[in-house]
């Protein structure tokens, strides 16, 4: 019965259905948050532009590289595991997690610099969104690092696939979030 109508389209999706439900949900949340950010920006474009100048754009650009490279390693790890190269897959997962930590260090430095300048979440509406959206994203990076290490240990194909999907979702959110918050002047 599942094959006929509602089953077939969903069965085309690679990987676990629940991970896709999560990916769509996260995209909706971040998408709505970024749209709200742009809408609130209309009320004070000059203030938003001035606030954005406090951001460390080069660090964010570097973090994009870090994250897409980490995503590459996670995707490659799954391919290797499927091909039976368990050792290589494990190392790739550990390396992906390590890059996740690098991302967090750069992000942490960014937050520390803001804090040193006396900038908090309530300094300006821009920073409320900045902290909410990047902070929520960074929390997912933390979770991703833990999960990557976990599947480097418990390395069933299905486990690696589910975590890699989570990690790619974190990547995907970043490539949409980074341009809107850091680059749109």
């Amino acid at each position, binding site marked *: *019965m*599942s094959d*006929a*109508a*509602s*089953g077939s389209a969903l069965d085309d999706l690679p990987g676990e*259905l*629940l991970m896709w*439900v*999560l990916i769509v*949900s996260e995209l*909706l*949340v971040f998408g*709505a*948050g970024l749209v*709200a950010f742009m809408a609130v920006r209309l009320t004070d474009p000059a203030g938003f532009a001035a606030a954005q100048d406090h951001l460390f754009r080069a660090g964010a650009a570097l973090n994009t590289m870090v994250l897409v490279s980490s995503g590459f390693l996670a995707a490659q790890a799954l391919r290797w595991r499927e091909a039976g190269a368990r050792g290589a897959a494990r190392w790739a997962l550990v390396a992906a997690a390590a890059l996740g930590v690098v991302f967090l260090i750069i992000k942490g430095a960014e937050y520390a610099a803001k804090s040193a300048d006396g900038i908090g*979440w*309530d300094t300006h509406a821009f920073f*409320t*969104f900045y*902290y*909410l959206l990047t902070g929520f994203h960074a929390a997912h990076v933390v979770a991703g690092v833990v999960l990557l290490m976990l599947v480097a240990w418990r390395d069933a194909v299905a486990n690696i696939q589910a975590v890699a999907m989570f990690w790619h979702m974190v990547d995907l959110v970043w490539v949409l979030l980074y341009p809107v918050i850091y680059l749109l002047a």
Partner: protein
Amino acid sequence: MKYETQKIALAYFAVAMALFAIQVSAGLLAGWVYVSPNTLSELLPFNIIRMLHSNSLVVWLITGFMGAAYFLIPEESEREIHSPTLAYLQLLILVVGTLGAVVTYVFDLFHGHWLLGMEGREFIEQPVWVKVGIVVAALIFLYNVTMTVLAGKKTAITNILLLGLWGLALLFLFSFYNPGNLSLDKQFWWYIVHLWVEGVWELIMASILAYLMLKLTGVDREVVEKWLYVIVALALFSGILGTGHHYYWIGTPGYWQWIGSIFSSLEVVPFFAMMAFAFVMVWKGRRDHPNKAALLWSLGCATLAFFGAGVWGFLHTLHGVNYYTHGTQITAAHGHLAFYGAYVSLNLAIFTYAMPILLNRDPYNQVLNMGSFWLMSGGVVFMTFALTFAGTVQTHLQRVLGENFMDVQDQLAIFYWMRFGAGIAVVLGALLFIYAVAVPRKEIIEPGAAETPAE
């Protein structure tokens, strides 16, 4: 009835339905006070009537959930309930606690006493001793059903049901924490009130609905389980941080306005998924189950929950809107349709399904039962519209034009009369329902011969 201990559910359902009758009667009385404000103002003040209305609602819904668990867990895990004695003892504790709470409220006994007096926090006004009793009963219940499930077969339905019931009990523990700071008080208070109805209760709802769909439509368990997992994931994803929509104006930091608005907007999604689930299952199902009334209640539950909890919730969940509508009759409109659709209808669906089996009868009085569905649902839907219009007018006059609260209330009288009329229909519907499931008649709908349930 395959298992002897499923019979426990009968006692739970009976208590639940008795409290249901009390709940709607108190509601009708409260509705009358709205049109004639001095009624009983000395003997039984409005706030007490409202407490009886909301407390008995919650208690009977939970009693119904527990009965449902005792009914469906033996069948799902293919085991008798671990200890029927404990199950009846648990019900006794709940009944004593409920009566104790009612007596304490009505006569305001032991005013201000830390253990025996009413606590005065909306919905968790119960005296501390009653709260302790609730926790003891919940522990007995969880021990009993968990032991049964652990000893038997584990299905997605029982797993999700247990997750929901454990969550329900654990979250209630926050009712013992009563900080002096009013903002903190409210912040933790919502861990119970919100995380129940927009969190763990949704898990209970989804699993009971899944069980009903499995039985009524005959769709493969595999398909039902896939839907169930997706619905549960969506409910938890949106519901947990959706708590933020209660943190807009209670003194919590401003970022909650965005967290609450965004996550709670997504709370409509699991309710939509439940509605889609119910209709897709019926559409795909091959079984022509004789209990048409149970199917009607199930579909009605999923549909009215989507509108009441989903659509009416979304209406005022964005903080820009809620800034104006907060605490108006819009909230009352949402509260009524959401509770009725999601949790009242769900309980009545499982009662309708289970009662003929428990009483070892054919599904009698289908027509009366279905009539009670339309009468009650029509009443609640009409009430919802009346209160929505009242709330809209109230928002405009009071929040936009800045008129005085009581002056505005006078102008809403027509809507309160309409709500009272709708309340009469609901009470009659509730009594009709109880009669239809409890009192047998010689009227049987033949499988396949009957009309299809209205959709």
